[in-house]
């Protein structure tokens, strides 16, 4: 039973190269919804070829689910290719922007902390500071956790992008 639960909670990285046309994103996301595939994260953006986009999905489920995701994705006419990336031979990153509102006494320690985790502070306005951080999902989670004492006001995350090594 516990084994099954562990298996079910597995997350897999799936990437797809798609033709960027009217309705493409709608069609891809609709597939996940209608077939009940659990989509933890989704990202789409331009890629090295004009007219094509590359999408990254984080899919929850066991291997048979991932296999069905890939088989159903490639059936979409817009999808040129798709694959699952093995965690050990791929790099995955997420960018997070975290707006914090530290007390005046906290500001120095905030900047020190951001330097420690190789984050950046691209902007600040009056008493609010935007922290930028890029890393793996657990690292992003750690940074968010570390910033909690500084009064987090807003978080924006891109979702994961990934590439094989």
């Amino acid at each position, binding site marked *: 039973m516990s084994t099954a639960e562990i298996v079910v909670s597995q997350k897999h990285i799936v990437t797809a*190269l798609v*033709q960027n046309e*009217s*309705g493409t994103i*709608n*069609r891809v996301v*609709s*597939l996940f919804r*209608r077939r009940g595939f659990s989509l933890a994260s989704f990202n789409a953006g331009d890629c090295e070829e004009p007219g094509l986009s590359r999408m990254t999905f984080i899919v929850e489920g066991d291997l*048979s689910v991932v*296999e*069905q995701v890939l*088989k*159903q994705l*490639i*059936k*979409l*006419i*817009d*999808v*040129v*290719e798709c694959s699952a990336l093995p965690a050990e031979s791929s790099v995955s990153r997420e960018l997070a922007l975290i707006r914090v509102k530290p007390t005046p006494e906290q500001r120095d320690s905030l900047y020190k902390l951001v330097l420690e985790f190789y984050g950046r502070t691209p902007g600040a306005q009056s008493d609010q500071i935007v922290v930028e951080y890029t890393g793996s999902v657990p690292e992003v989670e750690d940074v968010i956790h570390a910033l909690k004492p500084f009064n987090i006001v807003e978080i924006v995350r891109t979702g994961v992008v990934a590439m094989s090594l």
Partner: protein
Amino acid sequence: MESSTGNESQLRERSGAAVIMEALERHGIDTFFGYPGGVVLPLYDEMLNWPHVKHILVRHEQCAAHMADGYARATGRVGVCLATSGPGATNLVTGIANAMMDSIPMVCLTGNVNSWAIGKDAFQETDIQGITIPITKHNYLVTNVDDLPYVLAEAFYLANTGRKGPVLVDIPKDVLQKKTANPFPTEIKRRGYQLPPDPDPAQIAEAVAMIEAAQRPVLIAGAGVMWGEAFAELKTFAETNDIPVINSLLGLGTFPRDHELSLGMMGMHGEATGTLAVQAADLVIGIGARFDDRLTGDTKAFAANAKILHFDLDPAEVGKTVSPRAWVIGDVKATLGEINKLRTAQLSHPEWREQIRTWQAEYPLVVPEGKFLSRTVLRALNAHTNGEAIVATDVGQHQMWTAQFYKFKQPFNWMSSGGLGTMGFGFPAAIGAKFARPDDEVWAVVGDGGFQMTLQELQTAVEYGVNVKIALLNNGYLGMVRQWQELFYDNRYSSVAMGSPDFGKLAEAYGVKFFRCERTEDLDATLEGARAHNGPVLCEFVVEMEENVYPMVPAGGSNSAVIMDPALTHVEPPEDVVASFETTHAPHHIPEPELETAGANQ
């Protein structure tokens, strides 16, 4: 994509509407089905210049889709339907979903409001592209008339290649009016769209080894055999390897029902022999069949003693519901052809065949005498037409009885709403089939429920003189729902008793020849009279009200727990479907059916 045909006449400018008519002509569409409206007026005007591409005016757009569907199922060619924007387009939705579930090649054309008005909630605007994303193989919104020739060519190509399916092209009014000189492409190259691969020799070899090792093989032939036109290969394959052939619902007709190896349909209401044979088999070969839930019952118990071998062109079907031991991805005609080249020595499974003959003798389909039953009618229809008519049905009891009692000998003669289970499908599908094959006898078998959903097409049949016969089995109930309420809801009938109009007066109002038959004694005369009349005929058969379809595997139950017809003297299935069989397998356990409701084992 950029290539030119070199044909001067195609380089002249013509409107988007003319491009559409030209596309239909180029793809051999002699008949298509539609309903006009404001935004498609430019196309309806253009149609007058193309009298050889005949437009059939329907009475509801849903039926335009079903007629295109019937046209496709009767020919293997692409069916085309057309609707205007807004409600015209949304009325197509059921028909498109129906075609998607059964993988029917269709091109569905919709008009839309002017391209500059899209998104402004204009009159009769609807996002039909968005609405149909989950129910089309692909769809398009064409906002530039220069794209139209390529898009239409690609739409036909996608609809009719690989795993077939409906493709929708949504075209704003101004795109119908604007002109383009762009030619049609000579070749479609869609990156990422791959036709089924040639069968992998290693997979073929594995399949051959499994077939040669099997002692109790059965095969399940689905509609993929029909669309892949693999009938001859299937027959050779079954005969050479001595493998009994079961059909999925939509696979009926892919293997002659009068062949000694044919076991008919299996599953929820399939014949018991096929259902039991799969449970006892050591090898189950699915060919162009998708192992849907009505066929498998509880997948954990399905074919519990067998290795499953799956031949399909769609990799996504492999492992979707059941877990095959091996598979071959590719066109089933090519797959069977390759295996037939390797497997030429005659195999023989005499003990297995004997077991199957025993089941056939013990659990035949029965038609109790002394009552006027739907089964009585369908058995007679089969006899009168010698199993050679085109037959279309809706969904429900009449559908299952037709599948059981109509002994299809040829493919492309059977059209039924298998996946979506659409009431009202049969009659318009039959009309579409008759347009496609005017020389063949066409029957729509419908119930009183489904017929009342699309009977307005009687007028279409009358106007075009469509010689289609309707066998209306009137039992005063939504029969299948009533059966479930009887068996699983303790006879608590809720909204299933159904009144009907006086069908004789209705037929008279439409000008349709009418027969009413209430007794077995009048059956032959009714069928003879209907068949002799040249034109649409409505035959109302007033049948027994509370007749149940058997055998029956309750939804989600194990196929081993099939409920036999109470009319049989021995209504229980064998305790253990392989008990009588010496087998090298370890003792096995067939799970209890997982029934959620009492009363299922009555």
